């Protein structure tokens, strides 16, 4: 085995072509975003001025604020669900049967460690210098003491996991999310976070570029492994929801808000509408 992974980067020619393809895709999506932008702006203003969702009780049921693409989204959502039911989940179950949980966790740790550049660059772009430094030291500790990242040794040293993505970076820069969007094979997103996904993918891939078949294989493997770790949880959520699509949409929006506004501010904005209803009388019934 010859040395460091960086040194085994393939020759640039073939790679350049692929990168061109990727950057074309990024620009295409950015262009697509332009079409969404007016809608997105409109959405933001209505969100800011209109009362909470609960107010819209008497509106026709076909339009939900913040989800103009609902019919298409629901179709893709159920496609994703079918794919999960018929392919991903059975495979993940088999994998789960074969692999003990510590092995699954080690694989998860390994991939998370590899994606360090994504977190690091985004934290820098967000001006989060301390967390960026923390993620750098986590990477160093886990790559060495954690044996290539399979153990999260850093957590034992009280270096807490950091996370950051480019959709979040854009959000912090003030880019509006645009309409809620379900991506095939991926799930809940929006145009802003989709661009983020492409940029993060680019960051993650170019830093540790191996080769496309290997890369694709490892993405699939990681997906299966992560699904195996979530086997119980996903089923719980499905059972606990009245309408999984709506539940996932709300959860995504709440979590993204927290990531972009910070937990204090996100909670403050949410709680105003959430816990006090104007005619919340204390009558007994």
């Amino acid at each position: 085995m010859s040395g460091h992974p960086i040194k085994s980067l393939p020759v640039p020619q073939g790679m350049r072509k692929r990168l061109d393809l990727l950057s074309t895709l990024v620009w295409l999506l950015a262009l697509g975003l332009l079409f969404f932008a007016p809608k997105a702006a409109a959405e933001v203003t209505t969100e800011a001025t209109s009362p909470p969702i609960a107010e819209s009780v008497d509106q026709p049921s076909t339009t939900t604020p913040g989800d103009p693409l609902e019919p298409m989204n629901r179709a893709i959502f159920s496609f994703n669900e079918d794919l999960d039911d018929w392919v991903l989940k059975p495979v993940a179950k088999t994998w789960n049967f074969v692999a003990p949980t510590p092995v699954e966790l080690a694989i998860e740790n390994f991939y998370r460690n590899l994606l360090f550049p994504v977190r690091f660059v985004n934290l820098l772009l967000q001006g989060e210098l301390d967390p960026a430094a923390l993620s750098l030291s986590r990477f160093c500790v886990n790559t060495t003491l954690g044996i290539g990242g399979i153990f999260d040794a850093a957590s034992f040293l009280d270096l807490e996991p950091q996370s950051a993505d480019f959709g979040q970076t854009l959000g912090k820069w003030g880019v509006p999310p645009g309409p809620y969007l379900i991506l095939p094979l991926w799930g809940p997103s929006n145009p802003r976070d989709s661009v983020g996904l492409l940029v993060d993918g680019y960051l993650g891939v170019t830093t540790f570029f191996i080769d496309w078949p290997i890369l694709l294989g490892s993405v699939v493997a990681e997906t299966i492994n992560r699904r195996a770790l979530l086997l119980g949880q996903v089923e719980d959520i499905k059972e606990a929801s009245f309408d999984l699509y709506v539940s996932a949409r709300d959860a995504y929006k709440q979590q993204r808000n927290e990531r972009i506004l910070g937990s204090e501010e996100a909670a403050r904005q949410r709680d105003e509408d959430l816990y006090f209803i104007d005619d919340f009388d204390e009558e007994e019934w």
Partner: protein
Amino acid sequence: MPFLVLLLALMVPQTASAAEQAPTVFVAEMADEVIVVLKKENLSDETKIEKIEAIADRRFHFPSIARLVAARNWRRLSNPQKKAFSKEFQKHLSVTYGKNISRFDNQTIVITDDREEPRGDWTVKTRIVQPGGDDFLVDYRLRKIKGSWRVIDVVVEHISLVANFRSQVQELFSKRGVEDTLVFLAEKNSSGQSILPPGQAEPSR
């Protein structure tokens, strides 16, 4: 962990009266009660669920939760419909979350922070520590009802249960109407592979 402030185990002995109880103590006691039940090895799952439901009945205020979940729709409900909604919603929670007890794997609960909220509410932040897994964050929203603290929302990894169910219930009410929604909830509860006999989960007074 810099936030690690109070270990659950240290907080058990408490003599203060319920009325003057600190919110963190309230949550620590609740966590302790639940973990004691979960750790008992000679109890059947059914008995454990019954005991945990009894704890939840004392510690949560389900009528408030149901009302917050129904939000603006609440006004549209007649009194019997309010009762039915509240009852089905509580039952839904106990059926779906009751099943999780088999997943208990020596998690511990650490209270990390608490803060006062508008109009006397209180938030207590906790971290569930899972041996050999990712920790996760659970915040409890407390409100003083008739002189004692009650949980009115649980926020798991920044997702409020009340907000999440409110959006779903809103969808149900606007797509199906009131009566159909109540039928749907009842059917969902009886079709879910409930380990409980029907009518087990009664709303608290």
